[in-house]
């Protein structure tokens, strides 16, 4: 940069002044430099001294959060005893609003209907079963005194089979959606007898959690049984000479599958 330097300019600039920093300022800076050298270097990233607890606290917080989430997930996992063996297909869920709209609840008729009628009523669709449960809940909400009465009542034995049957029908219908769809219009003419009284419904709902897992499994197994297998069982009963039991099964079968063509072997002894 020799070409930029002008001796005259440099000389004149040097003549301007010779200011220097104050002695106190020098001492202050040199003291700071010595003091800084006595201290250890400040780390670039890792906090030191009193800030070190941040790391321990952060690690502990993460650990507690992980344990809490794990425990919460374990608690929210559904109990396998209350999970139905064969879930209702989505198609049945779609039919639910239509079926509900077809059934007009008649509280008076429901109250007069005997429990036996409910037990032997025409097979219900899953939609009817669901609507009945919904109606029961509504009736319970409207009649708190009835709820109290049902709570005082012991776990009614007759109520449980009625509810079981409705569950069985619903699950059985789920096993053959085509046939249940064909049966759907037949269920509408007699909705009232199929609906149990509200008190019984409340008792049923109260008794439901008390049901044994083995019974639930057996019901699910029967409900999931295809009609061909059921008819084979009836034929087997007839071969064993247990005609009375075969008749009962056949009657049940006809209720469940009214349009199913029953083979001759299963009908033998019917007359």
């Amino acid at each position, binding site marked *: 940069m020799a070409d*930029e330097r002008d001796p005259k*300019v440099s000389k*004149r600039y040097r*003549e301007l*002044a010779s200011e220097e920093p104050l002695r106190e*300022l*020098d001492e202050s800076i040199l003291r700071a*430099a010595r003091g800084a050298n006595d201290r250890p270097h400040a780390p670039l990233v890792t906090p030191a001294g009193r800030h070190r607890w941040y790391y321990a606290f952060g690690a502990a917080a993460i650990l507690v959060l992980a344990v809490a989430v794990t425990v919460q997930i374990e608690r929210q996992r559904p109990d396998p005893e209350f999970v139905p063996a064969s879930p209702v297909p989505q198609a049945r869920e779609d039919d639910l609003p239509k079926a509900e709209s077809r059934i007009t609840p008649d509280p008076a008729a429901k109250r007069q209907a005997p429990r036996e009628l409910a037990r032997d009523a025409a097979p219900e669709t899953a939609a009817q079963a669901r609507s009945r449960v919904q109606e029961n809940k509504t009736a319970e909400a409207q009649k708190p005194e009835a709820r109290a009465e049902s709570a005082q009542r012991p776990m009614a034995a007759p109520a449980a089979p009625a509810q079981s049957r409705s569950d069985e029908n619903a699950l059985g219908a789920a096993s053959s959606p085509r046939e249940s769809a064909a049966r759907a219009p037949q269920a509408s003419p007699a909705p009232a007898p199929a609906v149990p009284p509200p008190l019984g419904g409340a008792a049923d709902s109260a008794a439901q959690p008390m049901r044994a897992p083995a019974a639930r499994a057996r019901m699910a197994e029967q409900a999931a049984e295809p009609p061909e297998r059921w008819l084979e069982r009836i034929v087997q009963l007839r071969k064993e000479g247990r005609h009375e039991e075969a008749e009962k099964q056949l009657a049940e079968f006809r209720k469940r599958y009214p349009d199913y063509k029953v083979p001759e072997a299963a009908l033998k002894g019917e007359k």
Partner: protein
Amino acid sequence: MAEVPDEQLMLAYRGGDAGAFETLYTRHRVSLFRFVLRSIKARAAAEELFQEIWMRVIESRATYRPSARFTTWIYTIAHNRMVDHWRRGGLTLVSLDSEDLPANDPGPQRHVEGREALARFAAALEGLPAAQREAFLLHEEAGLTVPEIAAATGCNEEAAKSRLRYAMAKLRAAVDDG
């Protein structure tokens, strides 16, 4: 005996040698102080900035890498501190009216002429645009080259060269007038 380079002294200070810093400080204290004082109007502010610059040098010792000259590095720090100062206030040069004259008094007549010539030069220096004045001070006080001025002030070399050339031309005119 050859002088120990600034960079080596700084590395020695980083290693814990406080005496190395004292040597560095002694070498650069006057030129750096003048550079700051002639860039800042008030002496008090110049002293404050001067102290801040050296404190920054002390704090940055752990990260110092001798990739460039120490002079360029410390004047880069000074430039940045002054930019901050200019942002907070105005940009003016310190008044030179009350400055002491050289010890050799050439006599009353020359004394008056000398004062007038210095006043014209001081006025010309004060009248320079800030960037040109800074380029001149870095060149004259710190002895930086054009590339080093560019590095210290964060501009390209062409700009640094142009600023320095304009500053020298104006100051040369002020000297010739005297």
